[in-house]
């Protein structure tokens, strides 16, 4: 046991992480699968997310209509998320009701039916979900940015998938996807809350231990070749507001530079909120807010990256001031980037970034669901140590580290700049 966490792997390959927390009579269980939108070939984009939806349609033991009500009836909350590298399902329940969640998750790891009629009605639900996103200017711009940043690597499409594929993916495609990736040896079960570890582990073995392992599924990973020069794009659409995004290549979560870049992110754009549940803090004294919003080039600015398995992106997003043009805002952004490349940041600024991260972690720890989330999430791209050593790693970063990564990663020839051009209210 390390950091109060018990880590074990069942014979069938299911990795289990258990963390007892006795502050509230609640337990949160998270079932993670190593499959996400990056595992989808052309023609099948959006299939991981759609399969996630189908996991709510039931098994023989827990038909959809029963499943739907069972968790709610016991006062629990549940949901699922699909991202680039992973798909996850959680239930947070009163501690004495958690067995239901365990029975449900072990059952739907293998026994979901993917009924043909349900697939048909879910197709239009997902198309509707995508249409809702398409209403947003920022979605339209981000989608264009992502496909431009990744020509080769399968990080190139949105998790929701392309409309063409949402119309053509079949029930069998979905079921094959499920049967390929939903296996104990491709999953992590993470549970936090008010339980006794020994009893919990015995119950997990009973419910999940019998599920047979399957061939380890391959992961799609065609490395993105280096970008040889700045790329610019525009997206046009309705509205009166211009948005600008700038994306730079970012290392994966276990890369040695990830933590220096996290400090830099905090200084430039304000600390990214690392919690799934638990909120972050404002960024009104970040360097970019002062340089862009205070100086009225923009009315809002943010920046952030993701902890991913393969190198992804760091993206700045700017909501333009109505009296400015995109070039003026970009020049102000570039001047700030140049400043961190040319001049060492202070030790106090780094200390400040660490205190911010400490506070954000404290807010996240108020909440059992968020603690369960971290247990498994960190396993998707690293191990739980990644999370527990986070503050310690930040504390070792020096001004020289920050300058070095600013110079190395924020280079104009490896960036993509996108502008959403509003065509007015009548577009």
């Amino acid at each position, binding site marked *: 046991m390390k950091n109060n966490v018990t880590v074990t792997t069942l014979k069938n390959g299911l990795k289990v992480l258990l963390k007892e927390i006795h502050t509230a*009579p609640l337990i949160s269980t998270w079932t993670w699968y190593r499959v996400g939108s990056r595992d989808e070939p052309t023609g099948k984009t959006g299939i991981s997310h759609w399969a996630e939806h189908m996991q709510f349609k039931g098994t023989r033991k827990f038909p959809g209509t029963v499943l739907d009500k069972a968790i709610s009836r016991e006062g629990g909350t549940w949901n699922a998320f699909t991202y680039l590298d992973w798909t996850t399902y959680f239930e947070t329940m009163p501690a004495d009701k958690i067995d239901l969640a365990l029975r449900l998750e072990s059952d739907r790891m293998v026994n979901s039916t993917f009924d043909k009629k349900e697939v048909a009605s879910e197709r239009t639900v997902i198309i509707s979900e995508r249409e809702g996103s398409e209403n947003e200017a920022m979605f339209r711009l981000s989608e264009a940015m992502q496909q431009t940043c990744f020509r080769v690597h399968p990080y190139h499409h949105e998790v929701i998938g392309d409309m063409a594929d949402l119309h053509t993916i079949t029930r069998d495609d979905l079921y094959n996807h499920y049967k390929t990736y939903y296996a104990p040896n491709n999953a992590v079960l993470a549970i936090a809350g008010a339980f006794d570890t020994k009893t919990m582990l015995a119950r997990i073995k009973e419910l999940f231990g019998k599920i047979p392992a399957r061939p380890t599924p391959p992961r799609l990973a065609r490395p993105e070749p280096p970008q040889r020069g700045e790329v610019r794009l525009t997206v046009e659409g309705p509205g009166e507001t211009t948005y600008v995004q700038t994306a730079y290549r970012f290392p994966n979560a276990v890369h040695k530079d990830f933590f220096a870049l996290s400090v830099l992110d905090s200084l430039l754009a304000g600390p990214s909120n690392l919690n799934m549940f638990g909120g972050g803090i404002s960024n009104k004294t970040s360097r970019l807010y002062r340089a862009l919003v205070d100086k009225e080039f923009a009315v809002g600015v943010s920046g952030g990256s993701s902890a991913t398995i393969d190198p992804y992106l760091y993206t700045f997003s700017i909501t333009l001031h109505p009296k400015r043009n995109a070039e003026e805002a970009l020049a102000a952004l570039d001047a700030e980037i140049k400043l961190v490349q040319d001049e060492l940041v202070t030790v106090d600024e780094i200390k400040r970034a660490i205190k911010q991260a400490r506070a954000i972690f404290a807010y996240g720890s108020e909440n059992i669901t968020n603690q369960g989330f971290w247990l498994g999430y960190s396993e998707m791209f690293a191990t739980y140590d990644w999370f527990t050593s986070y503050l310690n790693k930040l504390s070792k970063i020096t001004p020289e580290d920050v300058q070095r990564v600013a110079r190395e990663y924020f280079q104009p020839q490896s960036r993509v700049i996108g502008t959403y051009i509003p065509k007015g209210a009548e577009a």
Partner: protein
Amino acid sequence: MATKTKKAPAMKALPGPDDIHREVLDNGIIVLTRSNFNSPSISISGLVRVSALSESDDKLGLADFVTSSLMRGTQKRSFDQIFNELESVGASMGFDSGIHNSGFGGRSLAEDLPHLLTLISESMREPTFPEVEVEKLRTQLLTSLSIRAQDTSDMANMLFDEILYADHPYSKPGDGTPETIKAITREDLIEFHRDHFGPRGMVISIVGAIEAKKAVSEVERVFGGWQVEAQKETPVLPPYQPMKKTVKRHHSIAGKAQADLIIGTTGPKRKDADYFAATLGNAVLGQFGMMGRIGASVREKAGLAYYAYSGMSAGSVGPGSWDVSAGVNPKNLQKATDLILKELARFTKSGVTKDELADCKANFVGRLPLSLESNGGVAGALLNIERHQLGMDYLLKYPEMVNAVTRDDVLAVARKYIDVNKLAIATAGP
């Protein structure tokens, strides 16, 4: 089966008279606190008697503009200094306006609570509305209004309020319109702040890693000396005229892939005797499981929408709304409307089944500890208890009150509020 004398283990975690501390300062400010040392953080939630009802029609959004300006500069600190002090310690705070009250809140590590309270007090008591900052903020507000104009859900909601609350203050948008935001002057902000902000009616709730006494003395330190003799009373809310027939209107926004639809009417007030019956009925209608009956019909069976649910916002003074929302492809608007109307008709004709009601009761009681696990959740609950005078034992009595509701109660409340021939139907999209 548990005996009467034995409390279920889950209930021990609920705040009650034993561990909620309530104190009234000499100037009338009510302080509520509850200690929680499980995490090193604290959360603040509060309200002041500052009402959007005090705005004139040509200055709609004034209360919102004022509350958004409070942190833009005080007699002691600039905008940048305020946020620098907050962000340097990972703290946050904010203000917002409402139709009857305005709210404030914040959170920090426990060690930074005194400073957080100092900043809240200064922002509320001594804002200076610096001209440069007011103009920056005005541009930001105008930009959010032009983003709002492109949001099908926001615009459908605004239109819904216009229909449902025609000629009533509840029909007016709290964040104003581009015209009114442009018309508001710095003098308007100063005057509104001077006339309406004060300790009378103020409530502050603090939850987290701090002893109750210490929390109260910190509030006393920053707010104890606050006196505003001229603090104006909140205007009286005019009576609401119920709808006489169904009114349907569409707001057109070009270039959108999806339309938003809202169908509904008014519901009970929070203190009404039939509140619990209504909120349980609403859960059956469009919340429980995957969004109740509405979700089952519009999403699961027909596959028309990613979201389709009902909501009830119980009013504090006037009637809140009780409505169904869905986001659908524009060509499916009529189909979705028909399905929703069918469910509303069924709801008012035969109410809910025994099983449905039992499910929702179990859900309401069972989810209580979950809604109260974070400091923010508890701070909000304490504020609610004080605001609606629900009693310090409210959370302990909650299961009893939920379980007392019968099927007949739900049917009666459904029929009392929902008349399928007198609905507001608002849509926004291409």
